[in-house]
């Protein structure tokens, strides 16, 4: 054993360390910092940040052929299992009764998807090929698993920046939305009180809803079936009330384990080579644009509905139609309440918010369908 040969071996960790690694580790630390100290979507950004850290320690082998990150990536991202398992859990947590009590609220879930397509246009103009532009656009679904699912199908090479943008901005909703809300609505509009006299929703309706929705959306937009069906499966487990064991497993074990592994696996794709380029910067800016555009479109549609209804609808609930469940709904209600302490529109906002969740999944499926067809990969 020649000691001259030893030194390079001893310092191989440092000698293989690149500027790119340093920058990415800095990025990882920022993600972890935001997750832990600013509580920005910690359940996802903490594992993503940690996975990124590991991917940039040279020779650690986590992302090598037999490494743990690679094993998790192949098991749950490539197969799209993790976002779907997360959706089973999310479905078990969603309550569709505010939406079912006011079905017209579902319209607000359509307008809030405009950001997807507006961002796609902008991404095309910035020179992204169609598959990447569509994946970037789907950040505008403002729903993590939908963004990850579509990006995995169309442009897995952009998965990490898309996931990071989707989850980061989702937590920044309380900073992004209020200025736009105040800019686009008048004080008078914001103080519109909405009567809440819902028709009672029977347990039977709640049980039929996820089944019927799966069928209707599945037949209309086959590409949306995996996402919508897992969301509805989780909801059915919950509302049926006969399989407590399964619904508890869905909203605890299954979603927690899938979330941890998903985060680590996505983070592990954040190597300097694939992440440190102009595209990542563009995606972060386009993502912010998508969020803003969604909010604007939602608010404008809310104003339209306000006008049509003769001023009975508070346009703020339009901003809840972007998805970002359940934050956007609460934020719309809070903004109305801040303006007038006697104004409570939470139930309407939550109806629009669950509609946005459905609209996001549907829009994601439609986008996947159109783009797959155009690229001949459908």
């Amino acid at each position, binding site marked *: 054993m020649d000691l001259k040969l030893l030194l390079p071996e001893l310092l191989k960790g440092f000698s293989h360390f690149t500027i790119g690694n340093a920058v990415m580790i800095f990025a990882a630390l920022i993600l972890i910092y935001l997750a832990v100290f600013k*509580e920005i*979507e910690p*359940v996802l950004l903490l594992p993503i940040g940690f996975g990124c850290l590991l991917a940039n320690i040279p020779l650690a082998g986590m992302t090598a052929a037999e490494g743990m990150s690679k094993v998790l990536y192949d098991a749950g991202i490539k197969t799209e299992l993790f976002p779907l398992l997360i959706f089973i859990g999310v479905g078990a*947590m969603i*309550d569709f*009764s*505010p*939406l*079912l009590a006011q*079905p*017209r609220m*579902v*319209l607000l*879930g*359509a307008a809030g998807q*405009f950001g*997807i*397509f507006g961002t*796609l*246009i902008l991404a*095309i*103009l910035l020179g992204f090929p169609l598959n990447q*532009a569509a994946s970037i656009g789907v950040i505008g679904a403002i729903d993590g698993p939908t963004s990850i699912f579509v990006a995995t199908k169309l442009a897995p090479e952009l998965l990490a920046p898309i996931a990071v943008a989707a989850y980061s901005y*989702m*937590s920044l909703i309380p900073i992004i939305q209020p200025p736009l809300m105040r800019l686009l609505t008048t004080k008078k509009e914001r103080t519109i*009180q909405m009567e*809440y006299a*819902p*028709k*009672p*929703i*029977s347990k*039977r*309706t709640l049980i*039929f*809803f996820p089944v*019927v*929705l799966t069928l*209707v959306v599945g037949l*209309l*937009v086959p590409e949306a079936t995996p996402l919508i069906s897992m969301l509805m499966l989780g909801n059915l487990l*919950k*509302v049926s009330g006969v399989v407590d064991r399964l619904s508890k497993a869905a*909203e605890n074990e299954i*979603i927690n384990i899938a979330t941890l592994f998903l985060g680590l696996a996505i983070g592990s794709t954040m190597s300097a080579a694939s992440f440190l380029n102009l595209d990542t910067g563009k995606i972060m800016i386009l993502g912010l644009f998508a969020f803003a555009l969604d909010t604007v479109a939602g608010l404008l549609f809310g104003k339209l509905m306000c006008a049509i209804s003769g001023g009975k609808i508070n346009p703020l609930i339009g901003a809840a139609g972007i998805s970002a469940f*359940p934050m956007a709904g*609460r934020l719309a209600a809070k903004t109305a*309440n801040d303006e007038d*302490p*006697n104004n409570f529109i*939470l*139930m309407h906002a*939550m109806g629009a918010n669950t509609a946005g969740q*459905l609209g996001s999944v549907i*829009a994601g499926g*439609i*986008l996947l369908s*159109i*783009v797959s067809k*155009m690229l001949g990969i459908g």
Partner: protein
Amino acid sequence: MSDLLLSLQITALGMGLVFGAILLLWLTMVLLTLFTADAPLSEGDASVSPAPVPVSETGYKLQAAAIAVAIALAEQDLSSAHPLPEPPTAIVSAWQLGMRTSQRSEKGNFRRH
């Protein structure tokens, strides 16, 4: 510019389909609530129906908070602002409390009419 044209077409088509699907969904929901409401729960039950679906520990805490708030509200005037505590993580559906305070206050409003 053909790229731009293409993306505009996708947008028109995509938003059209989204609105179409959502309209169909609206119709579905109306029909569904119509045909499955023949054995409706009483109004009191219906407003409670989301309650058996509380989410995680926070959900339970919010329920407890909701009861406390309801009692407090019954004892004092409704003019004060209502607290809407932030949920610890975004996974948590946090609006159970707000729903009750909302309903509570609307009843108050109706009385004044």
